[in-house]
């Protein structure tokens, strides 16, 4: 289960299921701040500004935070909020719970990227070009291909993401497009 909160759905002041408020979280010692966006607390990565959190069950939260950046680098859509990428990568965490090989593949893959990135790790590389240079060196690896392949459905098959691309999805219940613009092109 992916725990994604948005401002409207979450109780006031609450951003995480265990009851940590945003203020608590920011005050709390032992949290790790990842750039300006993400905070790791316990077994969750938290996005204070957008007010969502993602609990991890099997992968290290630091790994999930790196995966989020990796997912954005593989399929960058600047208009798409992080939470959709978070939903997509949650699948790797879930699978890691039942598949030790998969867990190792992901953890080792991220560790390898971090090691190649040097101090600060993959996520510490601020420039996209620097991260892409690393990815081009590993794009044939099973790790990269597993993450990339999973995103094709994990990211693009989220119905809530379709409006960002102008795709309208199911149309039968609306009577198709016969009266809703199947031939409305005017600029030709």
């Amino acid at each position, binding site marked *: 289960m992916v725990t994604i909160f948005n401002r409207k759905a979450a109780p006031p002041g609450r951003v995480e299921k265990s009851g940590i408020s945003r203020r608590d979280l920011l005050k709390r010692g032992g949290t790790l701040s990842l750039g300006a966006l993400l905070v790791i607390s316990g077994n969750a990565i938290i996005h204070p500004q957008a007010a969502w959190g993602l609990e991890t069950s099997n992968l290290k939260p630091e790994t999930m935070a790196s995966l989020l950046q990796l997912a954005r680098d*593989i*399929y*960058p*859509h600047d*208009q798409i909020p992080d939470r959709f990428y978070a939903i997509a990568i949650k699948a790797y965490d879930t699978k890691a719970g039942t598949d030790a090989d998969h867990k190792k593949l992901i953890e080792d893959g991220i560790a390898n990227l971090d090691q190649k990135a040097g101090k600060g790790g993959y996520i510490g590389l601020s420039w996209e070009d620097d991260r*892409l240079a690393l990815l081009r060196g590993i*794009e044939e690896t099973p790790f990269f*291909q597993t993450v*990339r392949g999973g995103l*094709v*459905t994990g*990211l*693009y*098959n989220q119905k809530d993401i*379709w409006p960002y*691309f*102008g*795709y*309208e*999805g*199911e*149309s*039968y*219940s609306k*009577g*198709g*497009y*016969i009266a*809703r*613009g*199947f*031939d*409305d*092109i005017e*600029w*030709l």
Partner: protein
Amino acid sequence: MAAPYDLKDDSVVVIIGSGAGGGTLGNELAQKGIDVVILEAGARHEYEDFINDEWDSFGQLAWVDKRTTSGDWRVAKDFPNLPAWIVKSVGGSTVHWAGASLRFQEHEFKDLTHYGKIEGANLLDWPITLAELEPYYAKAEDKMGVTRTNGIEGLPGNNNFKVLKAGADKLGYKECHTGNMAINSADRDDRMSCQQTGFCFQGCKWGAKWSTLYTEIPKGEATGKLEVRPNSMVQKIEHDKSGKVTGVVYIDKDGKQQLQKARIVAVAGNSIESPRLLLNSESSMFKDGMANSSGQVGRNYMRHTTGSVYGIFEKPVHMYRGTTMAGIIRDEARHDPSRGFVGGYEMETLSLGLPFMAAFLDPGGWGRSFTSALDQYSNMAGLWIVGEDMPQENNRITLHKDEKDKHGMPIANVNFSDHPNDIAMRDHAYKQGVALYEAVGATRAFPTPPYPSTHNLGTNRMSEKAQDGVVNKHGQSHDIKNLFVSDGSQFTTGGAENPTLTIVSLAIRQADYIAKEMAAKAI
């Protein structure tokens, strides 16, 4: 009403598969009073069950049983266990097909005569001519309600078509219209007209698109002479000492192995499953597989020379709205070797939803060149190339040496490599497609590689002589008189046209022949 037949009833015609070939043959025979059992590997999903969602629908309908691939085609790398995008469900791939219904051109029945010998290609003339098939094409067009035939109006053009047409005009193409589509442009045959819903590939929830699922099959069942058994996977065809087929072994809906006796067996499981079944029906009498004295079973696998071109424009197109493939340019379908290849190709409108666009735009692709194209999804127009590919002996279906399905039957391997003629044709078509969209003002136009095969052809081909092919001009096995092939695997060559209309026409013709031979007690 549907007649249940006894497993021991050896008077029935058993048809394996319920798609364009099997479903049509079943109804045609039932209408003549002949007892028919159709064994269909998939489940029965009626049209109200179809899903307007690409991946969910794929999960419901597609044949996803494992297959393997080899050869230099890109599908083997991108989709190593999904060589074909076809259907496992009652109605077969007529559930999924786009509806394009084109007759072959005269020369496409006589490739060897017109193209001459081509190195690496196993070309052969069909043992029938266009003139012989024309009356059956006419029957099929009437049966299926093909637009622009029988006084049926064309479908209205959607946005994607309008872009195609504008580009065709700019390039000087003359034959561009909304196609000959087996999709109702007005209510007909107790089916309603197209509502421009845009999920043709996911099964038409209105029933506006012809499919054996809700035309041929219920009509056949209404005669009391046709029984369709879903979830029935045939493993082997049996024969007697004389070599005549006597029945088929299949796994029933409860997972139990059954033997259905038969007077005649017709194989119509698509060009991958049909040769797989014949090869698996080897015996001490037929050591290389059934009906395979020529050694051609499984060979000459064709998939059409395909590919897509998408154009991105400054303003919205919404290509996914409306009938997916109601748009065609036929000018390049002619045989004109001055272009650097023999045969020709059609250009037809195509769109995919966002999820499938992401999967098929550039399989394996990533980064901003990929995502910036997807970002323009709503401003995109698309077309599909479908051209004649060369039959090659080593493009073939074989039984996997080690891997078996859950019931112990060896899975199929699909080996395919492009012939140089295929590549020359595809490159020409890509160039024309890009030029077409640029002529309408595309800011970016790009080709995409072939998808898993939807047109699977040729693996049990027709031939005049028994040594050159598997079946004769009626789809009857050269080796075994009461064994028929009724799907696209009997195609001698593939033509440039979407194959369903020809499959249906051949099935109608075959039904006449089977009835005549049965009446004469020849089979």
